[in-house]
């Protein structure tokens, strides 16, 4: 039986939620089209994740386990994926659109002579291949794309699909793989984790995002306090990461991270279209901005028109009460 294969991304010892969203979608497509729903995990501890993955309906899980996968490195990742694809000849390989995926998707397509479509907001199987929707033109427009090929690679934006559990007992297929550091032409010297122990935005249930309105230390500390109360990740608009107020890895938007938390609180963010493209999939959006005409209010479920210095203290205080 032909299959749809979903790549499960592991980051810092955890499964990326967005890969399970993609797996949930793959499962639905597999069921509707009589395909096998398979998954692939490539990590130094790949086998430890099979239980969680079979919970989302993968009937077969390919495992590639090697210490080289402790960090993201494109060369071994490409070799491992190619090897699995050559062995299992899937019809579709689906990825969550992470930075790791973006690093290898084109190369994998070229290597496997596969059709490819990146960063889609939805996709489906047709008789001739895959049809997908993806935001284009600085996310102002949606393009409908048709892809053909014996194998087609698809990467999916975070938050495009809901998680759907469908537990099954999966067959685990361990794939032999050996790669040593010396095979690598590129050398990964180090990873500077600028975000420290803060919450990964792609996975966060709640995000507090700061924009141009957050001008000084006082505002910044209000943002930190709000995030602490809600156990939220902190993000920022491009204006603030460019100005060096927040680290570039925290940038949310079309050119930064695409996030989809349950609750997104935009503080002092005007809502430029590029920013909105990165957060419009959030379930509930709260906007705090003193400009009543700011475009962010057009996408906000709850818009508070007011000065963040005046709004945030009582807002935080009330949330603290509700939390306790």
């Amino acid at each position, binding site marked *: 039986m032909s299959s749809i294969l979903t790549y499960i991304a592991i*980051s810092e010892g955890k499964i990326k939620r967005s890969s399970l969203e993609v797996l949930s979608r793959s499962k639905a497509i597999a069921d509707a089209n009589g395909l096998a729903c398979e998954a692939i995990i490539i990590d130094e501890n790949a086998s430890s994740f099979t239980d969680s993955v079979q919970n989302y309906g993968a009937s077969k899980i390919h495992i590639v386990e090697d210490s080289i996968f402790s960090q*993201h490195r*494109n060369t071994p990742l490409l070799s491992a994926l190619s090897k699995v694809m050559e062995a299992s000849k899937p019809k579709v390989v689906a990825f969550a659109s*992470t*930075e*790791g995926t973006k*690093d290898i*998707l*084109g*190369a994998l*397509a*070229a290597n496997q002579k596969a059709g*490819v*479509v*990146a*960063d889609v907001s939805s996709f489906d199987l047709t008789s001739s291949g895959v*049809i997908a929707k993806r*935001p*284009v*033109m600085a*996310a102002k*427009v*949606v393009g*409908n*794309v*048709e*892809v*053909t*090929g014996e194998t087609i690679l698809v990467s999916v934006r975070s938050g495009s699909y809901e998680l759907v559990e469908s537990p099954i007992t999966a067959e685990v297929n361990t794939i032999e793989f050996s790669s040593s550091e010396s095979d690598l*032409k*590129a*050398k990964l*010297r180090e*990873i*500077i984790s600028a975000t420290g122990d803060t919450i*990964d935005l*792609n996975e966060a249930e709640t995000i507090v995002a700061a924009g141009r309105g957050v001008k000084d230390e006082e505002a910044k500390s209000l943002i930190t306090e709000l995030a602490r109360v*809600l156990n939220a990740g902190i993000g920022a608009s491009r204006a603030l990461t*460019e100005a060096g107020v927040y680290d570039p890895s925290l*940038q949310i938007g*079309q050119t930064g991270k695409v996030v989809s938390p*349950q609750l997104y609180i935009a503080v002092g963010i005007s809502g430029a279209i590029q920013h909105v493209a990165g957060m419009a999939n959030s*379930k*509930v*959006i709260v906007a705090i901005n003193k400009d*009543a005409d700011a475009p962010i209010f057009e*996408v*906000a*479920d*709850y*818009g*508070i028109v007011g000065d963040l210095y*005046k*709004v945030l*203290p*009582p*807002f935080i205080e*009330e*949330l603290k009460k*509700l939390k306790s």
Partner: protein
Amino acid sequence: MKFYVCIKMVPDVYAPFQIKDGELIMDADRMVLNAYDASAVEEALVLSEKHGGEVEVVCIGSAKASETIRKALAMGADKGSHIVTTGDEGFDSGSYANILTAFLKDKEYDVLSLGKQSQDTDSGLTGSMVAELLHLPYTTNAVGLEIENGNLIVKRQGDTGQEIIELPTPCAVTCSNDMNEPRIPNLKGIMASKRKPIDTIDLASLGISESDLSPNSKVVSFEHKPARKAGQKFEGEADEIAREVAQLLDTEANVI
């Protein structure tokens, strides 16, 4: 160091447009140098100014694309190659990657650099495709480049932080627009650009016919993005509305 920078002419995504019967119609014929490519050109110029070297740009496109090459030359690139196509609307990332590969396969260079994606399509595939087809070590989404002992040191924005990657040359890298602020050509640059060489190359001389480039993917139609509905807007006494919304988040939205 010899840099090849692949650049692309793209429609100005900030120019007005409309969608009619699924077709995207730009109101004005306004084409620009892809912003990510401009960052790649800028970084190559900075590195060659610092370490010595040469920057050559290569661009695939219609006759009009020569304006985009001129722009890069006006910024300071030394030379341009224009791979002329009759029209490239139907090309996908794979088509571009195949042409670039055919052009670059017998060229000598140290660093092949590209924008990480096109402003109009945001696919981000061509760079790693070319690297794979040319068997080059590569990395993507660079936010900083440096040269050390003949190696390219890339600061890459990854999922968990900034990865510092050392690539031997020749290698390929795709650039984020977060790495620099591309220079705006000054008048001297604009004037000098007119005298810089641009080679024009046709596909046939690369051993390619346009029919060989039939893309695997094509955009069949465009539509407006689904609008998110605006919810309630609260105006008034800051203390009051802040508390009211906090409570609604708990009782109504159920997200606290």
